[in-house]
């Protein structure tokens, strides 16, 4: 079983990329589980045809100590992709990080963490220990960074490299940086910049995903691109990503950049 996690700045397209990646992987005949690790709970929406599925934390909140079964938190979406949303507290209260930890413990208890590939789609930044949970022992071994060529997005990706570096240096840790996915914002030299960033943090650009109108159209139709327009170049792009993820053998301990180096790198690709 392969377990991969996608991290990156908020709004950069992690959920869109994750959902399309899961859809593409399922098209290869694989059994896929996608777990949204964000209180916003919208990771799996396009796989579920626009529906917000009940979250693990919703059920915990309502049921308290009463038992929950796997069928109440796992839903089957497009092409058999199994979908789970961790959920979390209302904005501004409680501890979302602890919610992620609690979700993982429940999923473990259910034996839900099975299949050919598990895709973890994790909230914007690794703000606390809870959101590093998918990277810890036994969970995602392959971490992919989703970024555009914008400085703030690279900055977030670089920060996540620090978390991966810290976790991967632990003796029993199997978590590694598996690659950088460029979700483009139509900037000049964007692919070159992100490829160079990836090289500098001791990784590589695994896939360049160009900006495309079809992504918005698919979302408005509540579908992944894979489902909405499977013959499009964009869908092919996600299928290429899926193939590369499955064939990837380069897993590294990242070397995050100093902020000055990161800025001058971005500057040199203006």
């Amino acid at each position: 079983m392969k377990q991969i996690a996608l991290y990156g700045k908020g709004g950069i397209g992690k959920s869109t990329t994750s959902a399309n990646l899961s859809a593409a992987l399922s098209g290869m005949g694989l059994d896929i589980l996608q777990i949204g690790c964000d209180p916003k709970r919208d990771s799996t929406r396009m796989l579920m045809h626009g529906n917000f599925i009940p979250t693990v934390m919703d059920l915990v909140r309502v049921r308290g100590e009463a038992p929950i079964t796997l069928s109440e938190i796992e839903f089957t979406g497009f092409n058999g992709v199994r979908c789970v949303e961790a959920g979390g507290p209302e904005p501004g209260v409680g501890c979302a990080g602890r919610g992620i930890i609690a979700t993982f413990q429940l999923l473990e208890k259910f034996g839900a963490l099975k299949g050919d590939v598990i895709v973890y789609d994790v909230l914007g930044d690794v703000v606390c220990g809870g959101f590093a949970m998918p990277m810890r022992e036994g969970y995602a071994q392959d971490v992919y960074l989703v970024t555009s060529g914008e400085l703030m997005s690279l900055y977030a990706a670089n920060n996540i490299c620090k978390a991966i570096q810290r976790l991967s240096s632990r003796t029993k840790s199997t978590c590694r940086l598996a690659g950088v996915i460029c979700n483009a914002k139509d900037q000049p030299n964007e692919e070159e910049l992100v490829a160079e960033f990836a090289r500098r943090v001791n990784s590589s650009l695994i896939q360049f995903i160009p900006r495309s109108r079809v992504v918005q159209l698919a979302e408005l139709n509540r579908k992944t691109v894979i489902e909405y327009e499977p013959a499009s170049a964009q869908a092919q792009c996600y299928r290429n990503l899926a193939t590369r993820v499955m064939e990837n053998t380069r897993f590294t301990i990242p070397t995050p950049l100093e902020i000055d180096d990161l800025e001058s790198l971005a500057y040199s690709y203006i």
Partner: protein
Amino acid sequence: MILNPLPIHTSRFGGCTLTGALSVTTHICNTATIVHGPKGCTHHNFSLLHATGLDNETVTLPALISTALCESDIVFGGEGALLRTLDAVAERTPDAIFVLSTCIVDTIGDDVVAICSREYGVPVVIVPTAGFLGGTFQNGVANALCAIAGTAEPCPVNDCVNIIGEKNLEYEVEENYAEVIRLLDMLGIPVNIRYVHDITFDEIGTLGAARLNILREPALIPVGNYLTQRFGTPFIQTFPLGLSGTLSFLETVAGTFGIDSSRVVGKRTTAPE
């Protein structure tokens, strides 16, 4: 008065901020203390206060109530649990409710102030007591004394003193107090309140009535300063230690009250050591 200058502690004084604050709030009669956190924080402190009471030959069953937070309270926020507990405790109409925080609620950022600002029909006093913020038992004592003093308003001053910050968990609380009373009696000065040792919440309203505050020990100077700022009351930093300490204590107290101490002090200095 003990002549050994080393204070005789029970083993409790190295503990958590929460324990320090509880050593104060549980000595205010007819009040309840809510510990907002997991139930273990309350259980351990209840046991400790009870056992210390037994050491001092008193049976104490401190009025502690836990909000008993569990994992889902941490994930979704513990404010609801605090609200429910406050409602339940207020129904039993104590004279006041003290709300003490714990490490976990300050970590997740529960808005304790907002919850406690509601109307419960009884005064609700918040004492910040999260131990992980670097505080000690002594900080807990000081936080409680200052927070509770905030409920008292300035009032006309009389010729009396307050005893501030008695160490309710030490072995010789009453003996130490009795000796201070004996010395004050020699000067004819009465005690207003023992802040805090087995007093009522109403009595705390008279906190500003004393002409002088006598602190149990110099560690309470921040509390002394706070009371000076709030009520204008000057303070003596410590209970007297040893003969010379006792003489200067008498002189300082007498000086504050404009009393001639020479008769009392003169008699003491001629006594054999």
